[in-house]
């Protein structure tokens, strides 16, 4: 019988559940907001000091989604979107939070079209988690140049 955290357990045993849906929403988000292409990849990023953010899924399931991107990619997307080069780290952080918010809402809307869900306000964080709880890690290559990471986890800590 499925548990309360269906999002994370329903495809238990798969290496990356919901990968096709996540790919669809990441593509749409980067295309419409960043004017960039994205493709899933098995490459592991080695970005130092990345920009990272987290959003909590509060109901009807519990979990967290993390997003991480290399610093320079964050600045590039923000410059594309704002049409300005003289941005601050605060603006770039705001943009990363909005990207994560958009990806998370779109993902849950696709996975749970008939259920209302509630999310926290996204916030910047120091790092994305490793493998605690039930954790799934996805990488996407942006414009064949940089790799972002998205982590779905049911770990509440």
């Amino acid at each position, binding site marked *: 019988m499925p548990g309360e955290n269906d999002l994370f357990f329903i495809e238990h045993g798969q290496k990356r559940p919901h990968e096709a849906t996540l790919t669809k929403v990441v593509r749409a988000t980067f295309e419409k*907001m960043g004017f960039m292409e994205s493709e899933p990849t098995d490459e592991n990023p080695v970005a130092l000091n990345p920009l990272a953010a987290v959003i909590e899924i509060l109901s009807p399931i519990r979990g967290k989604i993390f997003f991480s991107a290399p610093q320079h990619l964050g600045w590039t997307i923000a410059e594309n979107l704002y049409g300005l080069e003289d941005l601050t780290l605060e603006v770039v952080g705001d943009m990363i939070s909005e990207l994560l918010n958009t*990806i998370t809402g779109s993902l849950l*809307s696709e996975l749970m079209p008939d259920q209302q869900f509630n999310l926290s306000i996204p916030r910047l964080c120091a790092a994305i988690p490793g493998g605690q709880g039930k954790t799934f890690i996805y990488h996407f290559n942006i414009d064949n140049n940089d790799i972002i990471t998205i982590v779905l986890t049911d770990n509440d800590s």
Partner: protein
Amino acid sequence: MRILIVDDTTTARVFAQKCLANIGLHDAEFIQAVHGLDALKKIRENPPDLILTDLIMPEMDGETLLKELKNDADLNHIPVLVVSSAANVARKDALMAMGALDVLPKPFSTTEIYNVLKIFLEPKEGSDAWGE
């Protein structure tokens, strides 16, 4: 035309404003609010012609803002377009029943927002941009 954009992130407000400018509303006066309470204050001071609001915001969310506006006889005529990544089918139905003009999921493109707002962009003969 005065358009109020309500979103807690600067990025979303800038993005929405760019899309609106791209569909022919570049001459509009854009006002911004960072959450529902901020928006209500600005709306009561000087009501806009159109409101775009996010849903998930601190202080007051977009759903509560919509409720407040629809319960206010002086303000319930203002069209409210909800733009949110949390707007799935279930929530869209609820928001439309509450009186939202439409509900547009994020991320949206210029074409998608044009399709929702074109009724305001193509005035009928003998009427102003709002069909009045």
